[in-house]
């Protein structure tokens, strides 16, 4: 599996660390209700199809990226820097 780092180009999956779904970029306000925080911390969809994950290019440039991939076909559809991504 190769991931297209926006800075380094296509690199081997071993250079990356997997964090989780891109929901993590969408932090609720500090005074949001318990339901919003419960969703943010614990609840994730388990999609058959396209999903967006956060990966860290740990052994490369050090950027956090959002990778769009398909869980059914294993196709990797693209990646953007997390700092530029909207979850």
């Amino acid at each position, binding site marked *: 599996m190769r991931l297209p780092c926006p*800075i*380094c*180009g*296509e*690199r*081997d999956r*071993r*250079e990356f660390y997997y964090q989780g779904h891109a929901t993590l970029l969408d932090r609720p306000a500090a005074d949001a209700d318990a339901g919003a925080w419960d969703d943010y911390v614990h609840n994730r969809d388990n999609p058959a199809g396209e999903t967006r994950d956060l990966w860290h290019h*740990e*052994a*490369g*440039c*050090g*950027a956090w990226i959002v990778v769009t991939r398909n869980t059914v076909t294993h196709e990797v559809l693209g990646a953007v820097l997390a700092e530029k991504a909207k979850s």
Partner: protein
Amino acid sequence: MVNLIAKTPCAGLLPKTIGTVTVTEVNAGQMTLLAPHRGQKKAVSDALKSAVGVGFPAPNRCLGTAPRAMWCGQEQALLIGAACPELAGAACVDHSDAWAIVQIDGADAVAVLARLTPLDLRATEFKRGHTARTLIGHMTGGITRLGAHSFEVMVMRSMAGTLVHDLTQAAENMAARALQGR
């Protein structure tokens, strides 16, 4: 006054010639990590260019020969082989003696490195002047292409022994295969 004797990271470990490859230590001299502040990259690049003759490199590129500016991470580069000029718009950290840098030359250099790194080292993809942060065995480090069969590999100094061990083992494996195929 006490005169301290400097010891290079790979002292006593290199040089080595194994099969078609030679591995030698590179003494890079003074090194400084440059990290421009937000929005200051252009100004830092211009200041660097007028002071030492090389600008701030694009991602995955290495500029110049002596001195050199080597990209080494997001918004970061190493200035190698020159004193760091005054750069108002950047954080500058002395990295002299912090890195173990080795040069690997020879016909099998690509084959040896291919055993240690997932990087695509083909000449069409990874050209002279290209550099990459990647994995070298279990270590994170940098690989820079110097020529058709010549590369520079760098890891933090504390891992010098492991770097030499990994390169030696990979080179010995390649040499053994060449013997077997004879």
